[in-house]
């Protein structure tokens, strides 16, 4: 095959790729923060004693986890206006990604909550803390440390899922790559550089999460 690699077109548009990458990261960070709050509430509901709270949280987690995220993305952008909810593409994508990450994080946090010994809650009650105080100042901080490894892999897959925003023309990394690909026809080079950028970013996320894990580890 007489294909010679020529990265000139890709380097010429590298700024465009980088701004796409920045947008991907931004979407991921905002969604994971909102998703963590949703996931925390859902996990507390899943481990509560209230039957209705458990059932509704379970319904949310099961439904979201069994749906393709692309269907959710398209639904939020194209179908929700029919229900009178009109969001722009960035808002609707963040909404979907937050709800999506919330469902996955709910399971992660639930496992974390179950690993916290019961004695800690009892100790909190004994010194007169309310249920809310026990959750926010004893259980949640301990649980978050425990779940950091799974949190890191959820964050990475969330970051990769931002590529779906390309389907509704949000100019993130995949969208930028597609545009360069179509305009320059430097197909192999474009996708090599793009996937290199994704892989490198995933690597950085994993490394920094490991660093945080080390810093936050409880002395044993």
């Amino acid at each position, binding site marked *: *095959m007489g*294909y010679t690699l020529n990265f000139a077109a890709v380097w010429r548009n590298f700024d465009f790729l980088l701004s796409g990458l920045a947008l991907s990261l931004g979407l991921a960070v905002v969604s994971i923060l909102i998703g963590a709050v949703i996931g925390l509430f859902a996990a507390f509901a899943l481990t509560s004693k209230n039957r209705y709270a458990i059932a509704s949280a379970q319904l949310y987690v*099961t*439904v979201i986890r*069994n*749906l*393709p*995220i*692309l*269907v*959710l993305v*398209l*639904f939020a952008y*194209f*179908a*929700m206006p*029919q*229900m009178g909810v009109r969001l722009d593409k960035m808002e609707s994508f963040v909404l979907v990604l937050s709800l999506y990450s919330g469902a996955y994080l709910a399971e992660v946090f639930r496992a974390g909550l179950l690993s916290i010994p019961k004695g800690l809650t009892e100790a909190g009650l004994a010194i007169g803390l309310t249920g809310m105080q026990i959750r926010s100042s004893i259980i949640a901080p301990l649980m978050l440390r425990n779940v950091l490894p799974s949190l890191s892999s959820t964050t*990475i897959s969330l970051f*990769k*899922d*931002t*590529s*779906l925003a*390309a*389907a509704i023309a949000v100019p993130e990394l*995949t969208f930028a*790559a*597609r545009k360069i*690909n179509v305009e320059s*026809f430097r*197909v*192999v080079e474009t*996708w090599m550089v*793009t*996937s290199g950028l*994704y*892989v*490198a970013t*995933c*690597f950085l996320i994993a490394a920094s999460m490991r660093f945080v894990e080390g810093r936050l580890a409880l002395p044993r």
Partner: protein
Amino acid sequence: MSYTFLEQFWIARYVIMNGLGMTVSISLLAILAGSILGVFVGLALVYGGAVLRLTVRAYTDVIRGTPVLVLVLASYYVSSAAGVDLGPFSAGVLALAIFCSSHVGEIVRGALQAIPKGQTEAAKAIGLTFTQTFTSVLWPQAMRQCLPSWVNTAAEMVKASTLLSVIGVAELLLRTQEIISRNFMSLQFYFLAGALYFIVNYGIEHFGKYVERKTALPS
């Protein structure tokens, strides 16, 4: 003249069924090819020599660090640029199979490494060859370990098959979009597609739990 949703659904019934059939065939092909390839990836990661292990590790890390949509687009565009005209269907299935293989590879690696070393030593002690040890001691145990995550991956593949709509494969999601572009009932038909995907994945999940119960060791 305007039709109700049920009438529109009746008009589009074959199109939807076709799309669902396409989704199922894409997923089945990708899971099958990906699992076979993935078993070799897992074996190479555990038993391979240094060079092979490093190569395969690089392969899995790159695939796992790349979004599936990028794999699908890259497979589609690169194959045609390389002069092999795969067409959207084969290119998409290839991308999903590669994605699946990296996940199955990690699952197999984890399962094999979780088996206590004593098992291999015991097998050696009674004079089994490596092949015998593997096929009758290690593999049956690893399979049980793999099952839950493998079922998860299968459900993941069904969800990932929606991405083939982006390169024009007429699976369920693309069919749904076509129907919506004719009748503008986006709410109803996205709901319908979502329900169908939910049923398929929920079914896979429960079938997996059933198989798990059936193959569980008596305790």
